């Protein structure tokens, strides 16, 4: 639970003219898949009006390079934004993700969950900022970035930040960088599960919280599983 209150320094950001719009009461649910060959058009900004619900999911399969910057402007009350992503990197893949979650209006919620598996000599950079304007009372905003390094050469840089100018909010952020748990691996192997398969199960388990947010019937879990098993 982080809380910093400083009404003095708040500087509003200008809303860009080119932005994805979620109008009053609108529900948006979009999935962006980067699969090496194709990189979808990811908006640079999202504007969220009252009572809207926005869910954006980013999936990167091995072979992707991308520089994603996303500014979210939550400007109407009682809206909800959920951003999530799974980034599976190999070789010399490089992905950077910059998110500014701007709570400009009261009584809104937002949640971010980004899980990365970095192998080879790949690199992942995360800069995530939750900004709660003085008007953003009763905001609930959470951010989590979990990273697993699968090789000695892979690199992850994660920088979660909170900027809070309202005094009645619930905000938290958390970031972890680690390796696959070896105790779990040995336990599985002692039951006859081969090492590769054990690692595969661990990686699938690691990304499953994001997969749970995907629409049912999506082919993405299957594609991710295939990608993970070939790491």
């Amino acid at each position, binding site marked *: 639970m982080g809380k910093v209150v400083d009404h003095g320094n708040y500087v509003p950001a200008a809303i860009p003219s080119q932005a994805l719009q979620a109008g009053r009461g609108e529900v948006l649910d979009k999935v962006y898949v980067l699969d090496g060959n194709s990189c979808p058009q990811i908006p640079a900004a999202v504007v969220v009006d009252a009572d809207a619900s926005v869910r954006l999911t980013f999936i990167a399969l091995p072979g992707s390079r991308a520089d994603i910057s996303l500014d979210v402007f939550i400007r109407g009350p009682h809206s909800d934004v959920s951003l999530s992503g799974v980034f599976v990197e190999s070789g010399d893949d490089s992905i950077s993700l910059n998110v500014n979650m701007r709570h400009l209006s009261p009584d809104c919620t937002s949640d971010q969950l980004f899980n990365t598996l970095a192998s080879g000599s790949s690199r992942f950079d995360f800069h995530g900022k939750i900004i709660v304007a003085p008007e953003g009372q009763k905001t609930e905003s959470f951010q989590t970035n979990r990273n697993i390094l699968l090789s000695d050469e892979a690199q992850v840089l994660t920088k979660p930040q909170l900027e809070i100018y309202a005094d009645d909010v619930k905000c938290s952020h958390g970031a972890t960088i680690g390796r696959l748990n*070896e*105790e*779990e691996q*040995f*336990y*599985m*192997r*002692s*039951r*006859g*599960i*081969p*090492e590769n*398969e054990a690692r595969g*199960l*661990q990686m*699938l*388990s*690691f990304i*499953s919280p994001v997969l749970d947010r995907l629409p049912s019937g999506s082919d993405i879990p299957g594609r991710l599983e295939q990608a993970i098993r070939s790491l």
Partner: protein
Amino acid sequence: MGKDILLKVSGLHASVGEKEILRGIDLEIRKGEVHAVMGPNGSGKSTLSSVLTGKPDYTVTGGSVYFNGEDLLAMKPEERSWAGLFMSFQYPVEIPGVTITNFMKSALDARRKAHGQEPLSGAEYLRLLREKMASVGMKPEFAKREVNVGFSGGEKKRNEIFQMAMLDPVLSILDETDSGLDVDALKIVASGVNALRSPEKSSIIITHYQKLLDYVKPDVVHVLKEGKIVLTGGLEIIEMIEKEGFDRF
């Protein structure tokens, strides 16, 4: 090596880091026998089970282990499992995101594959799963639970015995399976071990206390101290330890 010898440990030395913990273990287990290995804390009991199951972090610095005539120390942990070795962990590991159903399916499929068998059909597998869960008194809803996540101490140990029943090992090592168990859980564990007793199967019960041994009567009892087996005998040793503790060794 005699035909009926299942496990033969000779002059086994093992270290963790720079520290030598096993300092020349000799142990011979025949088919059908239940052996108890007793010893005070720090005597090397858990190191012995870790080395036998191939846990990384332990370095074997001398000696040999043959299991059914095969060089056990040359095998990976999963290969040891396929060959019929099983250890009930002192501290069962939580595996978030993996259900008991999927966990055991992966384990059984891998072993069947290693033996050149087709995987069980979904229906066959579920029948086996339900049967074995019932046999150790595990509620059916545990099948959907993540492995050991949020389990009580007793539930974790019960899950170990369930996995043992599923994998039907030739040699089971119970590493302090009785620690932290109440009498009811202890009886479940004991009946699980006793149910697997057969002329072809053997167990090693590693324990600090005699509690479990009230319910599972071993054929041979060993006392382990400072990395060596200092005494081997029968049930009279248990009584002696109960009366006098480990200090006399």
